[in-house]
């Protein structure tokens, strides 16, 4: 898998313990295997009750929860865990993908929402970004990746000490990429987090934005820093 090769390098340092709540045996097995290939450990719960028990007892980095499960549905499991003080990031998987379904899912305590059918590369990228160890970056005021530096307070960007002028949207795009440096960031994740839209754009709008940004932060510097991960998305990574 092209998508998982670069990320598994990173994942080596940040192997995650993932709990997958999914009642479809085949889908669960596939997820377990795919997560293992990406360097993570995944446990599978086939129904809501088992999922709740495992999540309540174990210390997981991320949970992937199917919304419709036997014995107890995903949303009520999440709500119950949240009310018990469990703050493990949750990605909800659902066949329901409407705007209000997403809203109810996130309201129940989910941190991200992915509609079936999905590409595993998309799921993996989202799960890695959700990893709570990564979210520590949220509070930093200056992001540094290689020789690239972004000051969130003064809105200035420098590479190798040289000032780079960015448009406001380009700044937010770079900010998001730097916050998740070393992680794969998909096009839909960028559209969601930088533009706050959740639909599939028909054309490669995001690619063009990224390539513009790349032009600004790579032109005149010898080393590439913003990498395209084929079949998945982008990753910002210092040399």
């Amino acid at each position, binding site marked *: 898998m092209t998508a998982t090769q670069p990320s598994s390098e990173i994942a080596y340092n940040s192997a995650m313990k993932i709990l997958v709540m999914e009642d479809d045996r085949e889908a669960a097995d596939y997820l377990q295997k795919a997560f293992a290939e990406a360097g993570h450990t995944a446990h599978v719960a086939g129904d809501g009750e088992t999922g709740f028990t495992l999540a309540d007892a174990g210390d997981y980095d991320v949970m992937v929860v199917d919304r419709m499960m036997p014995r107890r549905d995903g949303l009520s499991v999440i709500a119950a865990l949240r009310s018990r003080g469990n703050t493990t990031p949750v990605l909800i998987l659902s066949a329901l993908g409407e705007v209000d379904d997403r809203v109810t899912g996130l309201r129940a305590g989910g941190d991200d929402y992915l*509609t079936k059918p999905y590409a595993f590369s998309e799921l993996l990228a989202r799960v890695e970004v959700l990893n709570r160890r990564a979210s520590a970056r949220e509070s930093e005021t200056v992001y540094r990746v290689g020789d690239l530096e972004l000051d969130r307070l003064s809105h200035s960007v420098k590479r190798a000490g040289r000032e780079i002028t960015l448009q406001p949207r380009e700044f937010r795009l770079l900010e998001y990429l730097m916050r998740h440096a070393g992680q794969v960031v998909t096009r839909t994740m960028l559209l969601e987090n930088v533009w706050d*839209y959740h*639909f*599939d754009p*028909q*054309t490669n709008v995001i690619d063009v934005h990224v390539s513009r940004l790349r032009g600004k932060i790579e032109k005149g510097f010898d080393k590439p820093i913003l990498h395209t991960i*084929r079949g998945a998305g982008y990753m910002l990574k210092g040399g």
Partner: protein
Amino acid sequence: MALSLPAIMKTTAARLSALYFLLFALCAVLLVFYMTSLSARMLTAQTQDTINDEVLGLARAYQRGGLPLLVRVVENRSRQPGANLYLIADTNGQILTGNVQSLEPGVIETEGWTAEPFSYQRFGEGELDRLRSGTADQGTTTPPSGDSSAQPAGEKGHNAIALVLRLPNQMIMLVGRDLGEPERFRAVIKRALMLSLGMMGLGGLLIWFFVGHAALKRIDSVSDASRRIMGGDLTGRLPVTGAGDEFDRLSENLNTMLARIAMLNEGLKQVSDNIAHDLKTPLTRLRNRAEATLAGKHKTNDYRQALESTIAESDQLIKTFNAILMISRLEAGYSSETTSPVDLAATVSDVVELYEPVAEEAGVALEATVPDAIVVNGNRELIGQALSNIVDNGIKYSTGATDAPKVRVTLERVGNEIKLAVADNGHGIPDDSDRARATERFVRLEKSRSQPGSGLGLSLAKAIMTFHNGRLDLAPANPGLSVVMSFPARETH
């Protein structure tokens, strides 16, 4: 009708008839009972009044002339035709004078009104046979009164009520009145009531049967027609007689419903045909590629390439599928929870900003004229998606322009509508009917078949506009095409 009773009882008309008949009968019985008892009470009261008057008269005679005058007056009155009952007896109950021959025992022993009507016999009544043979036994024979001639006296005699008094000399006086007349009157009323109620009941039953039968026939014709329609003939319609009654209104409503169902069904059929075409083609391509890759001997890199294009193709399929689902959910209606005030101006700026690099790369000038703020009720995500689909189309189709390709987005308030227009200067869609078809699902006009896309962009935008109680119109822009999203303006408070 060759229907068995249980089958008849299954019809609403018969059930209703039975129910009405029962209720009617109950009312009739109550009415008869009430009328007869009321009339009986009235007659009794009248009888008592008459007796009271008599007693007053007799008391005056007693005061004037003592017992002898009283006896004379009593004897006198007893002889008059249709006379009341008079009786004077001594303290032992021995009858002294009057027109009563015998009484039920015990009647004269208690003073006051007799509690119950009692039976008695007048003088001479037992001797009727002898009277007929001409041998009247006593001079005191009372002339046969009306009732005794109409009704030959049986052993049971007649019924009467009476007032029993004790004279100052302890003798007993009884003044009474025969109940024959009131009783006959009561019987007549009762018979008349029974008869008329019976006639009314029968008439009601007949009328109900015919009315119910007519209604039943109408319902049967409706259910026959619906059975035909259920059988698959969606063009069938329920009969409308033109009478404009409830049945016609029902049939008309059901017909409108059928028309809508037929339309939806037609749409569904068209969509499934289109799905079959537009999903089968890429699926076949996918399958063929996999098969071809498996069949030949390839290098690892070839396998990788084949798999990558397989993934890309299935992603496109998923997108198409999601769009179809979204359109049908939007058409099925949406919960109002998902709408809130949306700043259209901000949405336009967002989308234009999102597409600006793509436009620039394609050599298309993307311009926007946006007022400060225009707010509509809606869903920001959906409006953003609709607008980006339209802008996306505009950029694609303006590239064929003879002048410098250009896409203009304008947002303005026109009357009580808010119009968001995206106009390109490409070839447009010259043909009116083509333009009308452009928003139908999967329709990709021949010239655009070569362009990438699912053919669902405009249909999704249209579904989104319908969801917002708005419209999506396509108009020629000379040159090019103008796609106009019209939102109803919010009420300003």
